[in-house]
Each structure stands twice: as structure tokens, then as C-alpha cells.
């Protein structure tokens, strides 16, 4: 299947993060992805938007290739909780991504807003943040703001020796 990455736009700050915005294999909603891309770019970050229905292998491969500072998973079709548990396990299994800040948000189940138990399960499975509906965007912005500056700092901690 053809790869489908969306070109990055706007002026990123030198200290901006490299961010991957993506959904998961079963979910075709994309307005959420377009919104998150714009929001992050406005905050000065560089975004790669992987588009609709991203298969697990492609998602992991793109994250390994780009080695982003932040991975943002968004799902609203109601399968996000289960798909998210599966995907974060695959991401964390990659040595390059073991410590990459990774968050999930949207409408993650089929019966309305999230429960604390669901949030705990996702955090335990390896997510660093869970942003289900209701004020989630503001919380997300403070989370992103609290991350160390991108590029240089990440490259150093990742020990790759390549300063982007």
C-alpha cells in the first residue's frame, strides 16, 4: 500500500518538536488529524500527518524512520481504546521509540466519554498522556508545552549524534 504522508507546512520554530500525527488502522476519520496538525504547526512544531486508516506496520515504520519528539494518536470511531493498546505495545517494542513521548486522544470507546479505568489502562500500556473529550485540547497544549525543546535536545538524548 502506497505511503501517505502529508507535507508539512508553516514556519516551525528552531526549538519546535518533530511530531507525528496519526490515527490507527480501523479509523478513517481525518478532520481530527487536520485539526491537530494545524494546532501543532501553529505552536511552532513540525508535523507529519499520516492520514486515514494507518496500518500498524506503516505506523511503526514511519515512527522508527522519523524518530519524532512526540507521537500523537487520535481516534474517534470508538475502537481507539483497543487499537491504542495494541499499537502502543508495538511502538514501545522498538528500541528507538521506547522513550518517545506518545499520547492518545479523541473518542476512544463506543459508549461516551472516557472512564478513569480506561485512562489508567492506557497509561499502564505505555502512553504518556490520554486526552479524551472535554477540555482535552487545552490539557494537551500544556502537555506539549512541558516537553523539552525538540531537535537538538532529542538528538542528544537519543544518542544518535545527528543534530537536525
Amino acid at each position, binding site marked *: 500500500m502506497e505511503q501517505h504522508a502529508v*507535507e508539512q507546512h508553516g514556519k516551525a520554530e528552531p526549538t519546535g518538536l518533530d511530531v507525528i500525527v496519526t490515527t490507527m488502522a480501523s479509523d478513517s476519520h*481525518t478532520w481530527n488529524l487536520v485539526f491537530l496538525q494545524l494546532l501543532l504547526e501553529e505552536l511552532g512544531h513540525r508535523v507529519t500527518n499520516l492520514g486515514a486508516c494507518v496500518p500498524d506496520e506503516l505506523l511503526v515504520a514511519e515512527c522508527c524512520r522519523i524518530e519524532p519528539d512526540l507521537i500523537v494518536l487520535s481516534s474517534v470511531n470508538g475502537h481507539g481504546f483497543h487499537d491504542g493498546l495494541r499499537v502502543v505495545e508495538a511502538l514501545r517494542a522498538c528500541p528507538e521509540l521506547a522513550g518517545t513521548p506518545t499520547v492518545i486522544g479523541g473518542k476512544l470507546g463506543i459508549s461516551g*466519554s472516557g472512564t478513569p479505568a480506561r485512562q489508567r489502562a492506557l497509561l499502564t500500556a505505555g502512553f504518556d498522556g490520554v486526552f479524551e473529550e472535554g477540555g*482535552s485540547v487545552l490539557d494537551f*497544549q500544556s502537555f506539549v508545552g512541558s516537553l523539552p525543546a525538540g531537535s537538538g535536545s532529542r538528538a542528544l538524548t537519543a544518542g544518535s549524534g545527528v543534530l537536525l
Partner: protein
Amino acid sequence: MTGGPAGAAPPAPTILPGGLPAGLPGAGAVPASGFGAFVARARAAGVLVVQPRMGMADPLRMRDGLRATRDADAVTVGTVTLDSYTRTGDLDAARRALAEGVGLNGYPIATHCADTTRTVLQGVMDARFPVQVRHGSAMPEHIVRALLAVGLDATEGGPVSYCLPYSRTPLREAVTAWRRSCELLASMREYGSEPHLETFGGCLMGQLCPPSLLIAVSVLEALFFRQHGLTSVSLSYAQQADPRQDEEALTVLARLAGELLPDVDHHVVLYAYMGVFPRSPGGARLLLEDAARLAVRAGAARLIVKTTAEAHRIPTVGENVRALETAAAAAADERARPALSAVPRACGPGTAATAAATAAATAAATAATTAAATAVAVVPDTGIEAEARALIGAVLELDTDVGRALVRAFAAGYLDVPYCLHPDNAGRARTSLAPDGRLLWSSVGSMPIAGLAADGPRPPILGSAGLISALSHVQRTYDDRAADPSAPTATAEVTAAACPPRPHLPQCRTDPPRPPEPPRTPVPPRTTSTPRRELGPTTP
């Protein structure tokens, strides 16, 4: 089915073999049985068919849902909506989810064994209650095989509408898969059934797509279905943000369908709003009622409803039944006053046309009272028809094979779905949303429609806050109306307006402008370190 809604509504259609009214206006050869025939009979009897979006993983609950739909106080057809794993062909995931009891967002028709699904349908589905499978798959052959195996023969979608906004499958592959699926469905005609296929092209991204492109894709998908053997089709259009624009669009769609599909049974199906829905139950109901009224005014034969749960989660059966009954009641109410809704549209934008339009509107009002099945509306022409014709014409000129023409059209950017991220979409078209909800182009990319709808450049939708604000325009409007019942309804606006309000004629609006209010969906504060701007091209 317990008959038509109470009140002034005409009686429910009699669904007896041989009881077909001959020569329905606007529809080609009407089949004797099946989904298309059922809708044609209802239409002849002057009743709007209403249909839910409904699918749950558990067969017993699915059966209960179908029965409740059948027994609702409305003329209904049933729906089996499939889950996202089945849609994307990940049958392993569907099987695991069933085994683990994980909540699915639809019915996994290719995973439950055929006997189970036959039991779901047995004694529920019959000539008086046809059932349609709704899926959303770019590669639907496994779904078509599964539905045919259990005796179903009505479904929906299309090579474009279930590829671009629903997958990352290359358009060329979707076209091939859809051709084979159409042929499979059409092959059932050998066995005496009349399979029915509905285009999803009238929805595309659910929101923020100007009507002419929705109409063009809907018509082109119907032509594709016909080319591959279907003889009973429906053409969809999704309610957008301005009832006047939608009425014009539906009128154009019906006209083009009549012209281009004269030899095929067809009807127009309206989808209640497919974008970000009002959060309040009152707002959701008002929006659904406006959809039902719109369907009646514009002569659509069938309406697919949305529920008060739409903004929040998958609806319950009860919520769906209430939506069906709400819509049926609003439709009956609208049909009971045809003269009222037909006359104001006599006000055309041009004075020269006014006399003729008035005469036509009077005729329309008379016709509507005497023959409810005949939709005659006089709607102002804002250029939707010219754009739709230009798009359809440009595509059909590319190749005699509709599927190949569609692939080439997207490659050339002659069709370009705004904000669609699919790699085969040019991604240069952008929408503008006028304050009154009218959808306009801010950029047409390479589509051959530049300048066809008059009036200069349009401001684009800007930045994340602008996008959320545009996406939630309808939600905001209807939640506000529900909170303040004295605010005029969309229908009242249409009726009271002295002439069809246009974005550059704000004085035509009857409701006073409201101060801007924060959208319901939280909008991020503008802490932007880069200037707000339009989302740029989405080249893969």
C-alpha cells in the same frame, strides 16, 4: 410498520405485488420488488421513507434493532451498519473483538456465520421491510459476498466516496474492487431479485464540501453502477449548513439524475447532517426535523436520520426509533402545508424572472397538493447546476469507461475533495463558509468550474481555530436555537425571507445577527507563534 405518521399524512404505501403505480415521474423502469420498488411505492403514495444508521455486534441486539425499526410509527426501511474492522477488511480483528467481547461500532457481517445473520433477518426482513447494509469499504467484495449469502441485496457506497474519505487504498484499486462488487450484486438479477445500490458520493467528508461536487460525485457513481449492471440505484446528498442551498442542490441532483439515468429505477436519498452534530438533544432534534422538512420540500424519497446521541457515542435502539418518528412527524407536517413552503421561493434573484417564477410557484403549490409524489420546486439558481454539469461533463469526456474516467479526473485535479488527505486527491480545493451557512469555494484548484458561481474571491477557512469554528457552525447554530426557542427555525427563515438571502445581501436575513459565541468544541487560544493561515496543499 404500523402505517404512516398520524395526522394529515397520506396513507402508507400498500406493498402488494402488482400494486405498482405506473410511470412514476423522474424514475426509470420501476422494479416489481426489492428496496427500490418499496421506496418507489412510498414515494407514489406521498410518504417519506425514513431509515436509521444502526449496527451492533451482538446478533440478538441487531435483530431487536431491526424489529424496532420496522415497528416504529413511520414508513421505514432497516439498516445493518457494519463495524470498522469489517469495513477495512481486518476480519482477524473483528473475530478477536467478538471473542473478547470488545465493543464494536457495527455488525461484523463477514465474521458472524451466515446462519446467524439469516436468523437475525428471519421474520423481520420481507417485501414490506427491506434491509440495507451500510459499510464504508473501499474494497467491498467480502462484504457483498457476505450480504448476498444471507439473502440481502441492497447496499451503498461507491468507488470514490468509499475510497478517498474512507481509506488509503489507491483509487484505481477501489475502482476495480467496486466494479467487481457491482457485477456481483447485479448478477443476482438472474435469480429474479432486484439489487439496489446507493451512492455515498453526496457525503464525501461529511461537511464543508460545496454541493456541486457532492452532486457530481453522486451522479458519476450512479453512472458507474449502471455501467456495471445495476438497474435500481439511489443518489445521496447530505444536508449541509444552509437549507436554501440544500434545496437548490437537491433539485439539481434530481434533475441531473432524471436526465442521465432515464432507463434506471432511481430515487434521491437525503442524509441528515453528516458533520459535527449539536450536543444538546433539542438541537439535534431541530436539525433532524429540518432535514425531514428539506427532504419533503425538495422531493427526496428517503431520509437517513441521525439521533440525539450523534455528537457523543453510538446511539441506542430507542434513540434511533425516536429519531425515525421525529423525522416522520416533521415530514408529514411539512407535507401538510405545501403552499406555504412553495410560495416564498417565487422570489428569484433577478426581477425579470420574477413573474414567471411566481406563476411557476403557484403551479408548484397546486401540483404539490394534488400530487404529493411530484416534487416541483422553484428555487433560485446560484450556479450549483452549472458547476455540477461542468464537473460531470469534464469527467465523462476523459473516458467512455466511468471508472477510468474517475481515476483520470482525480489525477488531473478535475475532481478535488476539499481537506481530503488521500494521496490520489489533488488537495488544492478549499471551502469557504458564509456567515449564513452557505458553502462556497475559496479555491477550486484545477476543477473546471472557476467563475461559474459568480461573486469574486471568497475568504478561506484559516487555522485550527477557524477550522473548528467552521466545522461546528451547525452545532453552534442548533444548540443556540434549542437553548432559545424564540429564535426562528431554518424553515421559518426560508418562509419569511423576502428573497433568498445571499452572503452579500445580509439585509435579507430576518433574524438579527447574534454576537459571536464561543464554539461548543473547545477552541485553543491563539497562542500561535506562526501566523494563522489556510491549511496548505496536502501533497503526499
